[in-house]
């Protein structure tokens, strides 16, 4: 049975809202795609090859003092609910968890988990190294990933080409293999209808956006994951600097939009946000999408200082722990959708009541 409490921080220290601009930016993530020389990529490799890749990586991790204590989860040996739980906690991708019908879970699929970092093995590429930080922290996340990449790359030979750089299964990742992304909450830009312009601007700058769960996921609750689009032709530092520069502009536009909302539509916004809060405090059944949308409103209300006594950390926790697999895990049994909606509403009421010291 998978026990996530074995992780130093349950794998969710990035939720603690300690980073810069944590009210607007939930987290910063950087991942590097790497492959081992001498093995076919995971999609093409035979079972035995993938298992040998895993054992090579495991030996290397054991030899690195700072990574020796990492928790190894054999994703190919756990049940569907547990794989879903890891995915909901943003610790593994949909593909590694085998949740994508096109890619059932592969033999040798595994993840090494440490404090704010992880190494996925036998995903689309042999290795997906990633670091995760609370708030807007691109420089720190980059320093972390550089260290991990250096240490692992000195112990296992990565597939590398003088002209093309690091070689990856999908050519959209070739070169640096780096995707740096920031999970950002932009309700102000959405409500003032400025979001389309902002997103179009991102594209012109060579950036892209996705939903809460990365590639292929929809935007819910006004959460956008903004990242670099291309990986070849520019040094890593330049990609990070540009993302940082653009994100600072997006953050300041979001702040401006919030000021405009309060100035021009004060009572309408105030009413809307308090209604969102009221629903979360008293509803008896909540779908995940509903919860996300109301949470987006409450998060905005906290940011605008309309609601006090509620921490961003609690709101972040609600995002993760009110997902279906987490609710089922907490209840200790599988839940139908309507059961999950009841449990979700109860969980949200409880957490908000605990935080504000009242009963719901």
């Amino acid at each position, binding site marked *: 049975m998978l026990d996530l409490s074995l992780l130093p921080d349950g794998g969710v220290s990035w939720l603690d809202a300690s980073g810069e601009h944590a009210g607007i930016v939930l987290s910063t993530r950087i991942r590097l795609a790497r492959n081992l020389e001498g093995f076919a*990529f995971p999609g093409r490799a035979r079972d035995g090859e993938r298992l040998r890749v895993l054992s090579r990586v495991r030996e290397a991790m054991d030899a690195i003092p700072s990574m020796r204590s990492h928790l190894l989860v054999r994703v190919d040996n756990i049940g569907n609910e547990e794989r879903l739980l890891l995915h909901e906690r943003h610790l593994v991708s949909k593909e590694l968890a085998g949740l994508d019908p096109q890619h059932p879970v592969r033999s040798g699929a595994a993840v090494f988990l440490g404090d704010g970092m992880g190494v996925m093995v036998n995903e689309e590429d042999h290795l997906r190294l990633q670091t995760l930080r609370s708030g807007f922290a691109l420089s720190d996340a980059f320093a972390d990933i550089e260290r991990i990449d250096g240490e692992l790359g000195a112990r296992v030979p990565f597939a590398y080409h003088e002209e*093309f*750089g*690091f070689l990856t299964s999908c050519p*959209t990742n070739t*070169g*640096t293999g780096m995707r740096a992304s920031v999970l950002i909450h932009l309700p102000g830009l959405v409500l003032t*209808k400025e979001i*389309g312009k902002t997103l179009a601007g991102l594209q012109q700058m060579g950036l892209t956006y996705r939903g809460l769960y990365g590639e292929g996921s929809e935007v819910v609750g006004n959460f956008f994951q903004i990242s670099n*689009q291309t990986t070849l032709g520019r040094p890593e530092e330049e990609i990070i600097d540009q993302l940082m520069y653009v994100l600072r502009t997006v953050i300041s536009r979001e702040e401006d939009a919030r000021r405009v909302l309060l100035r021009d539509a004060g009572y309408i916004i105030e009413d809307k946000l308090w209604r969102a809060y009221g629903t979360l405090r008293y509803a008896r059944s909540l779908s995940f999408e509903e919860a996300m949308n109301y949470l987006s409103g409450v998060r905005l209300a906290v940011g605008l200082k309309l609601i006090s006594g509620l921490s961003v950390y609690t709101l972040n926790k609600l995002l993760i722990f009110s997902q279906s697999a987490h609710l089922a895990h907490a209840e200790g049994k599988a839940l139908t959708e309507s059961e999950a909606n009841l449990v979700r509403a109860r969980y949200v009421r409880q957490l908000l009541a605990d935080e504000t010291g009242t009963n719901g």
Partner: protein
Amino acid sequence: MLCDNCKERDSVVTLTTSDAQGVTELHLCERCAAERGIETQMAAPKQPLTDFILAVQKQLPATLLESSRCSFCSGTLRDFKNTGRLGCAYCYQTFESSLRDLLRRVHGNSRHAGKRYQPPQPAVAEDATVLSELRDRLRRAVEQEQFEEAARLRDQIKVME
């Protein structure tokens, strides 16, 4: 050009989406684009991979898709076209010129400008590891009916054994 949605304002954004029916381009004005952002129905802004695969299809005659085969993983460009993924690092050498073109389309550049990498000096390769890798390649070659390659690998294995 007028917005495809409201047909009133000038379009400022082009949304490219692709599905089984092909690629659709939608020209939208700021307001309609913004509305799509809110409704969360907005397609991913750009789909480099889909563009990429379409480009492979367009550029290469059908014969070429099958004609060259990676000697390490037996993958062809057709496999790549079907899955959007290459089979192994050696595919980058086998299909070098096609890939250089396509990388340029996707990234606007085909030359890596990031971190330089020097792999660790290999310890004396253990025969057992090399042998099992050769056996994997042999099995793949047989599955793909690459009998010449299979015979070559079989001889190599015999020598090592």
